């Protein structure tokens, strides 16, 4: 369970203050999938950074399993991120000069997983994203979709409780994007991992349990998809109430 309680984040000094997050509050149940939607510059990434403890908002609490991570020491937050969370970034951030194996192994090394346990985990993660034939390839030789799959392998290798994905399909064509989406949701279902996806893509957002809309740093609306709607991929069933604005 993740509780975001009246989180505010401002940038800049007195004369030039910019409120990026303004009194944001919501709850995410364990194992849920959440979409954070909003226009560019609305504060989606800022919210994600705050929730993961990467950034420290001035006000509010981020309570994960009963503990306010904003009150933890830097080291404890680092440890928390290394063991319980992982990230998928919009622009992959795979290490182009390293092999797929080393890319995926990085979070395990950071979490100080012993070497002999690493190999099995890395192989399992690469198999899950169907990159097990590219173990020794340099990441720079992968296609865009393969890179993002590698990023997913890196994100799931440590079996995190919470997985953040910032526009995971933003740079991909629709079919490849769909593959990535399926991978993420499959993982979310299989392991009960809380999935937090930042996206522009309404279709992707529809597949999530909860949609949180942000505008100018404030929560505009929070909607929940019905389980039946989420289960099917048929667009016709997906028309939810209150979502008519997005449907042409």
């Amino acid at each position, binding site marked *: 369970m993740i509780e975001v309680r009246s989180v505010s984040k401002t940038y800049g000094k007195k004369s030039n203050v910019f409120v990026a997050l303004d009194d944001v509050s919501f709850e995410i149940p364990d194992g849920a999938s959440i979409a954070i939607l909003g226009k560019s510059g609305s504060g989606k990434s800022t919210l994600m950074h705050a929730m993961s403890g*990467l950034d420290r908002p001035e006000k509010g609490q981020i309570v994960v399993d009963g503990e306010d991570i904003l009150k933890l020491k830097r080291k404890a937050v680092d440890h928390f991120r290394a063991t319980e969370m992982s990230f998928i970034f919009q622009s992959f951030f795979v290490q182009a000069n390293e092999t797929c194996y080393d890319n995926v192994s990085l979070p395990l090394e950071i979490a100080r997983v012993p070497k002999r346990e690493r190999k099995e985990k890395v192989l399992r993660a690469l198999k899950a994203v169907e990159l097990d034939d590219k173990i020794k390839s340099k990441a720079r030789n992968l296609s865009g979709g393969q890179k993002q799959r590698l990023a997913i392998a890196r994100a799931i290798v440590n079996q995190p409780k919470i997985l953040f994905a910032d526009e995971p399909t933003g740079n991909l064509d629709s079919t490849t994007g769909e593959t990535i989406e399926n991978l993420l949701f499959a993982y979310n279902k299989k392991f009960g991992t809380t999935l937090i996806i930042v996206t522009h893509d309404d279709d992707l957002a529809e597949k999530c349990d909860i949609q949180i809309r942000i505008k100018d740093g404030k929560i505009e609306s929070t909607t929940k998809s019905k389980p039946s709607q989420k289960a099917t991929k048929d667009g016709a069933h997906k028309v939810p109430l209150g979502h008519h604005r997005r449907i042409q």
Partner: protein
Amino acid sequence: MKRRDIIRRAGRSLRQAKTRTLLTSFAIAVGAFTLTVSLAAGEGSRQYANKLIGSNINPQALFIVKDKNFFGGGQSQSGLRDYDPNATTNRAGVAIKQLTQDDVTKLQKRSDLTDVQPLYQLTIKYLVVAGSDKKFTADVSRYDDTVRNESSSGSLPPLGQQIGDDELVMPQSFADTLVSENVIKNSADIIGKKITLTVTKPSQQPTDAQIKQALTSKNPTAAIAQLTNGVSKDVSFVVSALTKQSSTNLSFTSAVQIAPSQAQQLFDYTTLGTSNYQKYAAVTALASGSNKPEDVKAALAQAGYPSQTAHDLQNLLFTIVNILQGIVAGFGVLALFASVFGIINTQYISVLERTQQIGLMKALGMPNKDVAKLFRYEAAWIGFLGGVIGSGVAWGVGTALNPVITDKLSLGTGNSLLIFQPLPVIILIVVLMLIAVVAGYLPARKAAKLDPIEALRTE
């Protein structure tokens, strides 16, 4: 992240920027090269000096004086100072106390010393080689049997044994002069030839009676000249050997050398009645039996006689070697100093280039101190690489050039100027790694302080 993984990742990052890594480490390699050579040359020189002293000087030998300024070159004394009848003032204006016959007797009586012999240094009027009337002048000293001498012609007694009373030894260069002056044909011809030394008794204040007698003689002018000129005496010797100077021959005496008893007689003759009579600048002796020269030296110092042992001579040589080594090492240190800036620069660029990677690692929960460690280990790798390249090249080139150097400096076969030892080189490499780590401190701190969100924003 575990240390091993950090080191592995650090190495990998460097491999990905091969050219830059190599170029940066070359700067250190220059320093490492110079320092390795200086270490090897120092070791080689010390071993060589040891060998020289070991094979040339009786390890029991002591060189005893009265005035410790003798060893320090003396203090230049220019003010008004106490008159000391037992001091001589050399040309540099240095007063050095001399040993008197009393001192010599005292030393001879000591049980921890044997073979106590004053150093006779005398000047002769001239010397003449039999069969020629050409007159030469030279310094005369006693033959030193505590030092190994090498002969180019004739034969010398082994170390510790004196030459005969009627024998004379002189340097090869003296014989060469005789050849060029047409006194002899070949330098070897001098062996077995007779040489006559003419020494003068110093003129003395004539007594009233002597003056009166001279004035009343048949030829007063000649008589007075005779009276004030002093008396001379001729002593003859047979040349038994020519000594040669070689690089393994440590203390080469550039004087005509005769047996100590002969030298003493001549010295007494030439100094009788002067203030130098039975005064000696120094005495040589051997520590007797199982007495250690160092212990005897301490005992002598207590008794008021400063002395030097073979070991001191070695230390003197070592001091010179150390100074030379220090100069070479100084250049190496300068090169290292320059390379430090190279490392700082390279590492800063590396941090900038990898901002995104640093951001990612931090986002994945890598603690700041591990990020700093990653960059410090990278610097250490650069130091290691530079050290190995520099020392390796120095070792290889030095080993290859050693025979040439030995030949050029005529060090004698089996001697090498450059002696490479693994331990100092390993220590050097470790030190270089530490220096590199220190140089990488600031860039590593920059990496550690990087804001992960900012870092992830940069594309």
